[in-house]
């Protein structure tokens, strides 16, 4: 059977950062309306909403139905999709498969989280609910898992934290050119080393901030899509994969199977090789994760990923741009929004609308990798210009 071709026809995104007087719903509505406008007012058949923890952040259940009501949607397929920090990728997968099946022809995917009204300690406690009971009882959190990973990587390959600092500097450079990023300022290596140690060997400047925000993409079957955009961004490959939930069950802490397998399956579906891919958005919750994910995705050999930012390859004007949006590090990480915001960035870049941070050459293919927990569950997507 011939598979339907599915494209992004429009995108929307709030600025990421601190939205003091705005609720999750305000942010989801803003991103949704922008995506609908960008899709020439298209009326989608379905709505997929990625929100991790509105129950804990704002005492709200059923955010997808609330949003559908606010958007004036009736008689549509509406659902919430949750995969912790990879909820956005999972929601795009759910929407894509619904269209591919022929049950619906179009879908609005909207992700968001409202986090900054809670303290850092409250945020840490909310996010820590996603690890196993045993892991939580030790006091470990996702940021401290990144520290365990960083020390292991550094000792195995004989490096210090300087390559991590280069990832932070690079992603802040990108964020400084993204008017929707949480942090829009460059940092120096000195700023990195002057930042406080959070979990040795990692510092404040290794980590994503806590942010509010939302992002949206409109997906449509390609024949219909051409009525709503001149530049449909095709999703030609999409897949998910899991790794162990309990992190210490992994045979190799530096090979995230969820990332590796979802990449392999998505590339196979698209019929593409890694050499076709000239742009990647990935899940740099901490700097070390950008390095390890690039290796697990197979773009660098084990032990070689740290060179990418040091040598400038992954800068927006380098040979293999990574996280041109600023990544989680500088753009911010309003959890449910993150995977959708990756698709937003790639659509801008492939359409040549990324402004100052526009990559030098529009690639044949781009990828995003949206990861739940500490590599528990990843969704990876291959995008291609569809015009």
């Amino acid at each position, binding site marked *: 059977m011939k598979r339907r071709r599915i494209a992004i026809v429009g995108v929307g995104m709030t600025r990421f950062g601190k939205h003091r007087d705005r609720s999750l719903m305000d942010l989801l509505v803003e991103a949704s309306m922008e995506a609908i406008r960008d899709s020439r007012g298209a009326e989608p058949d379905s709505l997929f909403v990625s929100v991790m923890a509105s129950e804990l952040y704002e005492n709200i259940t059923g955010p997808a139905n609330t949003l559908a009501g606010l958007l004036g949607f009736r008689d549509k397929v509406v659902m919430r999709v949750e995969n912790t920090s990879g909820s956005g990728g999972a929601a795009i997968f759910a929407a894509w498969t619904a269209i591919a099946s022929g049950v619906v022809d179009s879908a609005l995917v909207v992700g968001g989280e409202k986090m900054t009204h809670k303290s*850092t*300690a*409250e945020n*840490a*406690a909310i996010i*820590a609910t996603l690890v*196993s*009971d*045993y*892991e939580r*009882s*030790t*006091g*470990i*959190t996702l940021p*401290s898992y990144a*520290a*365990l*990973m960083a*020390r*292991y990587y550094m*000792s195995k390959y004989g490096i210090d934290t300087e390559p991590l600092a280069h990832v932070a500097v690079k992603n802040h450079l990108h964020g400084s050119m993204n008017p929707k990023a949480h942090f829009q300022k460059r940092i120096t290596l000195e700023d990195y080393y002057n930042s*406080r*140690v*959070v*979990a*040795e*060997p*990692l510092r404040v400047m290794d980590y994503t901030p806590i942010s509010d925000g939302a992002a949206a993409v409109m997906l449509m079957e390609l024949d219909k899509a051409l009525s709503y955009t001149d530049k449909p961004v095709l999703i030609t490959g999409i897949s998910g994969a899991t790794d162990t939930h*309990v*992190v*210490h*069950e992994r045979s190799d*802490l530096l090979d995230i199977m969820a990332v590796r397998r979802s990449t392999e399956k998505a590339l196979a579906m698209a019929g593409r090789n890694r050499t076709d891919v000239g742009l990647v958005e990935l899940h740099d919750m901490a700097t070390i994760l950008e390095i390890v994910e690039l290796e697990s995705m197979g773009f660098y050999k084990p032990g070689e990923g740290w060179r990418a930012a040091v040598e400038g390859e992954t800068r927006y004007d380098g040979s293999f741009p990574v996280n041109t949006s600023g990544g989680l590090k500088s753009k911010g990480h309003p959890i449910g929004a993150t995977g959708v915001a990756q698709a937003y960035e790639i659509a801008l870049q492939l359409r040549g609308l990324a402004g100052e941070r526009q990559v030098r050459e529009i690639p044949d293919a781009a990828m995003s990798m949206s990861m739940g927990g500490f590599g528990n569950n990843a969704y990876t997507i291959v995008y291609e210009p569809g015009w």
Partner: protein
Amino acid sequence: MERKPVLQVCRACGKAYYPRKARCYCGSTEFEERVLEAKGRIVTFTIIHVPPAGFQPPLKVAIADFGVVKILGRLEEGYEPGLGDQVEALERDGVVFLKPVS
């Protein structure tokens, strides 16, 4: 009270787990219990200066490799860990502490 952790070992493939699970990656649900007697080595550790609520900084955690299993555990405050340190695992109130073997 401290005791040695009890591993859950798959009867079909021999893989060991701590904490327990419902089903092995090999698909088997037949397990036996085995006390972890072996000494392990610290493969990575961190000292957390901003721990979650309910924990005092500095909070030290590590992953140790015991051959049959790797376990994430806490370190006691007075212990200055190093990579490769030999440790034993002792469970207290459901949490494994990794203690240096003197």
